[in-house]
């Protein structure tokens, strides 16, 4: 190697390789540490840690059936996480995921009950109505978060607080509708809207019991990644997120970017609401409020605002949730154990965040 150029390029490649090694090693180490701490907790609670690890593995990833359980739980989280993740790239901390999901479910059920079913005279094909439901859900969820974004941009209202409060408004609105105007009096199990026509239900992926929501979640996460990392829009968003003044000086349309990114984030959560209504509940009721939104915030932070990492983190959380039952049934651990496990895992992962660039073995050495 006489020319300096190839040498330099190998060094760059090597350092990139080390950086990606760091991205893999740190979370895995964090996970192992979390497992150790959790093992100690289980031992204190009177269970055999090794047996507990075995059960967690078996219930979450041990068989195809267990994998399906995990993936079913993971799919809504991929979408709700994007509601925090996308605005975070622009420097906003939005936690209105639950509200956007609820509004998405509402939008979808309005369209689904209005256009579909036997009462409708339009006689549209089911696919068209489903698509309309998805668009309605995404629009409703998107506009809901745009409210928080607009308050931030035009009036300087803290977007974290306003989006949090919007959650309560959305939930109260949902309760009002299902207990009042939308209530189906013949359904006694709980106050609910009328049932969607069976032709509008989202089916399951062939050969599985996983509904199509998983597929949508995966696709949308990949789209979000491309959008953020590979487009001008994404670049502008990231620039604004890094330094809003510089972005303004550079002439970036910060206001439009804020509203657009809020809309996109909200529409992802809105789609999750539509899927939950069309694939699981089949009608609108309080069961739509089951913490997918809040869990999504956690997923977004743990995945370090990377939409591809979101997929993995959502699957990890899905697996943890899937193993919650077996901890109770086979080890007589209290039902909150799974939350303890979840908390320990995420604390460890978040702590490992502070170690990036601090472990010499994982740093680029040629300078």
């Amino acid at each position, binding site marked *: 190697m006489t020319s300096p150029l190839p040498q330099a390029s190998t060094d760059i490649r090597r350092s990139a390789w080390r950086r990606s090694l760091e991205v893999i090693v740190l979370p895995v180490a964090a996970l192992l540490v979390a497992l150790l701490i959790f093992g100690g907790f289980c031992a204190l609670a009177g269970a055999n840690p090794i047996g507990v690890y075995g059960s967690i593995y*078996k219930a979450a990833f041990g068989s195809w*059936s267990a994998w399906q359980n995990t993936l079913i739980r993971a799919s809504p989280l991929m979408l709700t996480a994007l509601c925090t993740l996308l605005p975070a790239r622009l420097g906003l901390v939005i936690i209105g995921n639950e509200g956007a999901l609820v509004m998405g479910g509402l939008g979808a059920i309005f369209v689904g009950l209005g256009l579909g079913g036997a009462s409708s005279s339009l006689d549209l094909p089911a696919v068209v109505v489903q698509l309309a439901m998805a668009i309605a859900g995404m629009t409703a969820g998107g506009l809901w978060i745009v409210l928080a974004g607009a308050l931030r941009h035009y009036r300087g209202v803290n977007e974290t607080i306003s989006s949090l409060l919007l959650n309560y408004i959305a939930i109260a609105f949902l309760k009002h509708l299902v207990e009042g105007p939308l209530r189906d009096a013949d359904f*006694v*199990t709980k106050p609910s809207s009328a049932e969607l026509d069976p032709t509008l239900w989202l089916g399951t992926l062939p050969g599985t019991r996983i509904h199509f929501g998983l597929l949508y979640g995966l696709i949308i996460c990949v789209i979000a990644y491309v959008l953020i990392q590979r487009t001008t829009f994404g670049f502008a968003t990231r620039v604004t997120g890094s330094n809003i003044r510089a972005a303004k000086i550079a002439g970036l349309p910060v206001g439009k970017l804020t509203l657009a990114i809020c809309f996109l984030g909200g529409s992802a959560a809105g789609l999750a609401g539509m899927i939950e209504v069309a694939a*699981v509940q089949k009608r609108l009721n309080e069961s739509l409020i089951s913490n997918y939104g809040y869990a999504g915030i956690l997923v977004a932070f743990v995945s370090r605002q990377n939409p591809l990492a979101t997929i993995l983190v959502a699957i990890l959380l899905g697996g943890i949730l899937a193993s919650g*039952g077996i901890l*109770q049934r086979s080890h007589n651990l209290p039902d909150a154990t799974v939350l303890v496990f979840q908390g320990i895992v995420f604390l460890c992962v978040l702590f490992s965040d502070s170690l990036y660039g601090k472990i010499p073995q994982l740093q680029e050495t040629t300078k």
Partner: protein
Amino acid sequence: MSRPIRISRRQAVRGLLATTAFGVATKLGGCSPSPEGEASSAGGGEGEVVVGFIYVGPKDDFGYNQAHAEGAQAMAAVPGIKIIEEANVPETSAVLETMRSMIEIDGATVIFPTSFGYFDPYMLEMAAEFPEVQFFHAGGLYQEGVHPDNVGSYFGYIDEAQYVGGVIAGRMSETGQLGFVAAIPIPQVLRNINSFTLGAQSVNPAATTQVVFTGGWAEPVKEAEATNSMADQGIDVIACHVDSPKVVMETAEKRGLYTVGYHANQAPLAPEGYLTGAEWDWESIYTSLGQQFVEGKTLMAGGIEHVLRGGLAENFCKVSPYGPAVTEEAQAEGDAAKEALITGVLVIYEGELSDNKGGAILAADEKYEQQNIELEKMDWLIEGVKGSTGS
């Protein structure tokens, strides 16, 4: 500065391949023995019936879930029964997965998803998918011909116990003003409020019940507010129908009020003021069902009734032991009412009755027996109840 060990990409790839290969090999090797291991752990012992219980909240909520969990423990005592339990399971696809893994991993052949909201669509979906597994639901409306054969429903006329609680409350109240903290205005809740009030009026015709609807099954903050504002109004006995009466009981005890409990025995929460309470008695029904499971009876073969209903007489519910504050006179009146309900002499909804808006409900010679379907559609509050169903 020591130079850290360098790993070339080639080395790393080789290492990764080797580990993967090792992993795959052990995975394949481990494949054959695992099904046997699962089979032996599933199904418990030979001939043991595995019964799965699912609760929507914690098992020690001093309320709805605790009542079922205590019943499940009683069933566990039946020889030949093994129970498995899962608490805090939300009414989403999570409960589908719980039922499925109870059946597939633990080998459960009977499932009790106890929360009202589990019934439709979740339990019905699973019942269709696993026709050989029996599903029992508390309060679900079983429709013959519509629902699968392996679905059963059981529920109790707990308003009979509320009536007895009302008798004690009416006698013990000095002001004649009673309070009722309620979740949402659905027939079951309204029926409890009305029966409680009728019980109180049977000993004190001037007694009134102030109702506050909190709007949800678990609204601890609103429940505490309602209890406090009732205390401020001069109400001196408080009853409730919410998922966990814990907050109402503790708040009322702090304010020095008498309380009438619900779902389970809350005497430990209010040792001074707890008068009595309307409790589910799932222990007797669960024990008897457990025995029938062991005998091999099933819903599908017709050995077990699809709809099981009953009140105090059938041991579906019971009245909490009287608290220390209850006078002998009140105890005697309470016992008499209980006896009259058990023997069927007393019918709670007997004319002449009118609602609290002045509309007639029952004429002088009419009555609604407990089984009357009109009572399961109730949308009115009787005269003497202050509050409205429209909130």
